[in-house]
């Protein structure tokens, strides 16, 4: 049953701590949690979002806004460090992550020009399961990511009324602990923006990021 007042915010920083730029979501989550998040805001970190996000939302009808922060691979028109916010409840966010077309309804650092090459693709998932793909496809239990989490929560009816995904274009998701320079440079701005957006949501409802 929906909470009468789903007024809390859950921020989930996603990524892999030893895969260079893929740790961006974790770093941002750590920054947001540092010193204690504001009242009404919870911050969690996960390296396995497909399982953890649905688990975090189970029984939490008091969550009105879910914020997911993650790195993503990008097309050639959007250099590493470029970031934007997708508003999953206002457009086909799942398709955006899967197929690469930015969500026209979302606003953020980038414009969404129809017909342009896809710039965001969730590196950990593919659109349809395939057998015998010879790689880490959807049959790899490590494969499912944010998209699968959103899909599962949607099916379960546990997805909050509002879901924002902040994605930053990664340059390098190979092994290592260091962020690339452009992604490292983006983290501060993303952290500030998320903090500001969430504060706006808490105080007045929607936040239209421009």
């Amino acid at each position, binding site marked *: 049953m929906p909470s009468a007042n789903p007024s809390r915010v859950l921020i989930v920083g996603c990524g892999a701590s030893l895969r260079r730029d893929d740790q961006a979501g974790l770093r941002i989550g750590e920054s947001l949690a540092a010193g204690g998040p504001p009242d009404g805001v919870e911050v969690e970190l996960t390296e*396995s979002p497909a399982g953890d996000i649905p688990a975090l939302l189970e029984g939490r009808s008091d969550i009105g806004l879910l914020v997911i922060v993650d790195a993503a691979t990008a097309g050639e028109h959007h250099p590493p460090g470029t970031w934007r916010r997708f508003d999953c409840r206002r457009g086909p966010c799942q398709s955006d992550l899967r197929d690469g077309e930015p969500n026209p309804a979302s606003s953020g650092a980038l414009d969404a020009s129809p017909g342009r090459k896809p710039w965001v693709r969730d590196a950990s998932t593919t659109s349809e399961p395939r*057998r015998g793909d010879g790689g880490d496809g959807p049959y790899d239990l490590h494969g499912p990511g944010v998209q699968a989490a959103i899909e599962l929560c949607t099916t379960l009816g546990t997805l909050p009324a509002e879901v924002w995904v902040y994605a930053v274009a990664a340059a390098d998701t190979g092994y290592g602990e260091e962020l690339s320079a452009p992604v490292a440079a983006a983290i501060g701005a993303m952290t500030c923006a998320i903090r500001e957006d969430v504060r706006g949501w808490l105080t007045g409802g929607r936040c239209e990021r421009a």
Partner: protein
Amino acid sequence: MNNVTIDVKHVTRVEGHGNISVSVRDGEITHLQLAIVESPRFFEAFLRGRPYYEAPHITCRICGICSMGHTAASVQAMEAACGITITEQAKMLRKLAFYGEQLQSHYLHVCFLAVPDFLGVGSVIPLAGTHPDVVKMALRLKKLGNDICNIVVGRHIHPVAVHVGGVTHFPRDEELLGLKRRLEASRADLTVLAGLVATLKVPQFTRDTEYVALKHVGNGEYAFYDGDIVSTKDPKPTKVANYRKRVIEKVVPHSAAKHCSSPNAPTYAVGSLARFNNNFAQLHPAAKDVAGKLGLKPICCNPFHNNTAQVVEAVHCTEAAVEMIDLLLIRGVKEEPLVPPGKFGLGAGSSEVPRGVLFHEYGVDAKGRIESSNLIIPTGQNLANIEADMRALVPQLLKTKMSKEEMTLQLEMLVRAYDPCISCATHLLDVNWED
């Protein structure tokens, strides 16, 4: 059906990559393999030269599901190599975390990986549509297991607070009480889960099998964290230090993981059903009660009932965790230093991780650096037994006149019933691949 070719690449809802290939000609099996095509991991190689205290933190990365289990086997092996006896409190905290890991792993397997087969859906996503309450329950239960590990050993995977010589994190009373309340509340979900499992139509298949597990001799504890090696065909306990007398490894061409045999049988099985078969008397009464309701009795030789045994063990772990928390609260958790090494040498350790008995062995030189290691993973021990099961199951399926698709599903369900962790198992060296 006299001629059948089954070629599954890859088996789904298992950890890692494995292929089933079966050929039947004129009613006879001409080819049957569970081919493990995962890349080797080389953990035993890159442990060499590392300081002794790094072993648990490196080897726990073998698995993201049973990382506490690898940690437990690793610290016990290294503590044996270093002449360390840890405190009772450290062992209790490790055991509590171990229960958490068993719970999260069993719930993951039963609810997310195995149950979809029985309910006729392809994965957890459609299961969420057809049985949302089951998925929500599974999410709650699995999160509880994760949170136990997180609170007790610092992370829900790859624990950071378990070290050679003890532990370095000490949960507060209120944290333990919170876990206890949630564990007690989870009994209701477990009852529902057991009720669901009772309704599943488990394939009727048995094959005479040796079941190998750890066992506590004397204190009546259901062995998870440690114990001696026993089996259903040889119940005389063997100390873990002598594990090579019970486990015989060999390389096979079609698998990046070794196969194992025992002195008693060309193949054997480990895992929940093996533990259940060897340690039924040590189960918590509540777990025995659920086993009775599910119709599970030792010695059960139907591998599909490994799923059932996991539910029984989940009940046991829930009750054992509650009792462990009570003990810790009565004693009062106090900060303790790590016990330093008294020597360096050779040591073996073993734990019953969710998928079965796991062995770690290290040789440490005089400077405290690892010079040798041997890791024997549960799934590696099960692979030959799975193939043996498949060889027995295929003729039985052929007699039923079921379709090729139904046969394929049955074989996939058989593999999944073992809850294989293929990535864990692939670690062998010195394989000569032939074209």
